[in-house]
């Protein structure tokens, strides 16, 4: 019965995604940016659903299983402040630039800003590199959920394959419009079912107070596991929203700049029905399902559902977890596809007949083929890695957060130069790969044991590289600045500095 409900849910999501494809106008802009027609509520739901991944449910509960309630402050409350602030500062500017210049990706924006196709190509490579661990989270999370909830009837490899296939089908059919509608549906599902899961499990445990009484008191405070420096380090991770390609793509779908208002205000509140159940169920799981070691704790939420919820409800609750997993996976895959297709697409021409009809059929087809390719590669990787979902997520966020100075400089700092941008990008790539290679398997590592995490080191280094090299090199041309700062143009002192 549980399996039947989960499969029915997957079919339902497929239906929503494919139904929205009937609205697709078969142009590249509609496939990738929904022709800038998405309103405030759908934008909030699709942005929030895209941002909440298996990391937020499976990863956070798994980490809370080991570290306690402090995990909420590490990611949830830090995001409640940083994500709306970044959205407020960047999204309207990016939207205007995207609409005025036809940008759909950061790669296009950076190429134009610093007049360097090579820089765009390098950014494309770095973004792809950083998205791989993030994609893995979704594919792994889908497999874990289906394997746990069916008690192994559906093995993890088959669960991952099934989730990848459903995402592939509705993203390929509906593009970003399909993803936005499916995300809205799935975000509502996982927000509602998250609260229901919590209520059902806590009731089975004899009430919240009684359940908390059985938990190790050390897990009810930050304690030594989360030193102040670690908490401060984690506040940098949500800066990653400045550079996530999948969020950038969703920003451009907005109808106007004021469409972002609801997202900025409601985002901190939307975090609560997702992160409160996730963290608390992880903490309660440490007493109810003891003995999970390391990455195995990523499955504690599903283990709790399977143990304490009856068959039909377990299927529904598992569907809620799958909703969170797929609502991110689709946008991540689509954004990578957009990065690739737009980069390649600028090097080919549309047939006169298609151009006359306003159709970019080949661009859409190329996007669909790349979606299939990316998911296939990610699926194979998911069979080979054994890592904690939370830690994979943190590594991915670290790289994206360290790139945030590049995006801020592109839209705010006229004096930033091509060489400075190269220095920033090169610093991030080199340090991220260096850290990942040397300490990727050491979950407790921090700088000299101080609690300072790699994200602090890499972000500080990338900022210094950007600022230092920019100030030492020739400013960008007036023409390039004019596209980004049309009213002011290059300030006189820039010319003097040259």
């Amino acid at each position, binding site marked *: 019965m549980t399996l039947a409900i989960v499969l029915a849910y997957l079919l339902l999501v497929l239906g929503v995604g494919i139904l929205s494809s009937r609205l697709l106008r078969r142009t590249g802009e509609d496939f990738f940016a929904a022709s800038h027609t998405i*309103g405030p509520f759908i934008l909030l739901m699709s942005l929030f659903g895209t941002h909440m991944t298996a990391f937020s449910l499976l990863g956070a509960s798994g980490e809370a299983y080991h570290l306690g*309630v*402090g995990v*909420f*402050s590490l990611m*949830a*409350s*830090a995001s*409640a*402040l940083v994500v*709306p*602030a970044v959205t*407020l*500062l960047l999204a*309207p*500017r990016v*939207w*205007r*630039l995207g*609409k*005025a210049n036809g940008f759909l990706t950061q790669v296009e924006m950076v190429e134009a800003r610093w007049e360097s196709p090579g820089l765009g190509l390098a950014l494309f490579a770095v973004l792809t590199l950083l998205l791989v661990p993030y994609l893995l989270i979704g594919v792994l999370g889908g497999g874990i959920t289906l394997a746990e909830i069916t008690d192994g009837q559906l093995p993890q490899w088959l669960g991952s394959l099934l989730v990848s296939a459903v995402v592939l089908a509705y993203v390929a059919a509906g593009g970003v419009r399909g993803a936005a509608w499916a995300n809205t549906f799935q975000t509502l599902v996982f927000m509602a079912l998250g609260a229901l899961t919590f209520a059902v499990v806590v009731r089975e445990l004899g009430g*919240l*107070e009684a359940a*908390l009484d059985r938990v190790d*008191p*050390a897990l*009810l*405070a*930050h*304690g030594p596991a989360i030193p*102040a420096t670690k*908490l*401060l380090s984690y*506040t940098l991770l949500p800066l990653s929203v400045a550079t996530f390609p999948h969020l950038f793509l969703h920003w451009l779908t907005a*109808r*106007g*700049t*004021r*469409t*972002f*208002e609801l997202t*900025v*205000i*409601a*985002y*901190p*509140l939307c*975090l*609560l029905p997702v992160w*409160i159940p996730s*963290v*608390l169920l992880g903490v309660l799981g440490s007493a109810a399902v003891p003995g999970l070691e390391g990455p195995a704790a990523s499955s504690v939420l599903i283990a709790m559902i399977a143990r304490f919820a009856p068959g039909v409800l377990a299927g529904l609750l598992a569907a809620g977890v799958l909703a969170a997993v797929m609502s991110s996976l689709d946008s991540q895959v689509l954004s990578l596809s957009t990065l690739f297709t737009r980069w390649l697409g600028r090097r080919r021409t549309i047939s006169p007949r298609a151009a006359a009809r306003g159709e970019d059929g080949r661009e859409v087809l190329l996007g669909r083929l790349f979606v299939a390719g990316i998911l296939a590669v990610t699926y194979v990787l998911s069979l080979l890695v054994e890592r904690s979902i939370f830690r994979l997520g943190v590594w991915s966020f670290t790289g994206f957060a360290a790139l945030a100075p590049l995006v801020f400089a592109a*839209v*705010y700092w006229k004096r930033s130069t091509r060489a400075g941008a190269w220095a920033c990008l090169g610093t991030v790539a080199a340090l991220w790969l260096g850290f990942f290679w040397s300490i990727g398997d050491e979950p407790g590592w921090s700088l000299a044991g101080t609690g300072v995490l790699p994200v602090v080191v890499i972000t500080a280094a990338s900022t210094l590289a950007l600022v230092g090299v920019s100030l030492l090199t020739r400013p960008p041309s007036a023409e390039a600045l004019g596209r*980004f*700062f*049309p*009213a*002011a143009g290059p300030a006189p002192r820039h010319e003097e500095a040259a």
Partner: protein
Amino acid sequence: MKKLAWAGVGLLYLLHNDVWLWSEPHRLPWAWSLPAGFVYHVVFCVAAALLFWLIVCTSSFSPLKEGGPRGDLSVRRELPERPGGP
């Protein structure tokens, strides 16, 4: 107003680091017996939403409003309207 708004964001950032609750497993009977540090960060999220509501809805400053009416912005119209950059 703009400076005040971002000062509010800065203040909340400082308040995020609740060192005074660091080793406090004390539970609050009025909040379903949840740990004090956990409740603090839940309230923090609500405070953040209120701050951004103030910035977006009640202050004269908001980057979102630098363009025109809700939902029907045309960038080609609005870009020249804003002196100093997009």
